[in-house]
């Protein structure tokens, strides 16, 4: 995954904010995703940002090291890409 590439949320993704959880639904692909609080944060900030920017914000938010932030963010963004929620 290219660290400098800008992440873009796909259009027409529906969301339901259930407090600490977030549900996303793509009517086009019928994919439903459930996010916990940390994945929800990544989803909220990812649009029009690069991976490096997201990792930096994530590490700052949860006060964690670079390696942990890198792993978490890449896991979530990869899953979102596979499910067609971001480009």
């Amino acid at each position, binding site marked *: 995954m290219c660290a400098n590439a800008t992440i873009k949320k796909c259009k027409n993704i*529906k969301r339901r904010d259930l407090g600490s959880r977030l*549900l996303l639904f793509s*009517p086009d692909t019928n994919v*439903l*995703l*459930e996010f916990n609080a940390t*994945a929800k944060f990544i989803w909220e900030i990812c649009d029009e940002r690069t991976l490096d920017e997201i990792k930096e914000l994530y590490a700052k938010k949860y006060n964690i090291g670079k390696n942990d932030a890198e792993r978490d963010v890449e*896991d979530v963004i990869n899953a*979102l890409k596979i*499910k067609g929620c971001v480009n």
Partner: protein
Amino acid sequence: MVNDINYPMLVSWELTNACNLNCIYCFNNSGVPFADELTKKEIYDGLRNLYNAGVFRIEFSGGEPTIRPDFVDIIKEAHKRDFVLSIASNGTLIDEKIAALLRDVGVSYVQISLDGLEKTNDCQKGSIGAFNRTIKGIEYLKKYDINVHTRMTVTKTNLSEIEDVLKLAISMNVNEFNAMRAWSSGRAMDSHFTLGPDEIIRLDSEMERLHKQYSKYITVKYDHCGHFERKSFQIFKDHGERICQCGRLTCVIKPNGIITPCEILTINAGDLRKEKFIEIWNNSRVFEPFRSFNTENLKGTCAKCSDKNVCGGNCRSLAMIHYGDFYAEDPTCWRVMRAKEAK
């Protein structure tokens, strides 16, 4: 961190039991509205309830949903709450105003019941002129570029007209043609017009042929609810079809707010007027057998069938309706019918 989950992916909401037609096979016995149907305000409350439960997709049906005087208001409210909407209708009451509204709210599709050419359709619908009004409704929907699916409920009466209806759908730029057998429930319970084993097999091969011949012009689907034959099942399964999702991924809200796992089953899982939807979905014991279903518990002909793990016992609701037993054989499977004939 990110998970696929099982969830009420689709809530089918029967807005009313009232209907302007009198279909011979109606599994709901629709016609007269229930005395205790939800008011507009109660439906608005229910929409909020579903939203808070995380539901995304609602299909409004009936009865005939468009017959409600407040249908337009309900659609607007559901749109405001950002639901993905679809409508199941007979199409006869769809006018330009409704079509424009459905376009404006971005309805994902409208499923229109169309059972034959004029004479056959009107005979099955119990209403002279229904065909022409349905066709007009489809024309309005297509004028507004709405995704239209036609649904043909197959009986002995219209079995020979499937290709004609399919061609008609193509000529009207319909997006999807869906055929399914009449269920042996409601007005079709123990009826003379539901298909027998030989006709089911004929329907199977006919749908295979039509799928092969017309799929480049229109999406051809064959709903296997209440049906099973291995070869065609595999074909349609490969195209994303699944047998019964009731109680696991879908449920039904009846016109009076009672929630059931399946549209043909009247078992009460909970009351939307009194309880939160999510609590009913998570806790009602009515859903439990659908979620813990095990083919090894099937009885009768289904128990001995080598394909029971492919079809999953087919329709459990029909087993409940006919035998009062969730694990009884499916009375509408042609193999079960054949086995009964052999006795």
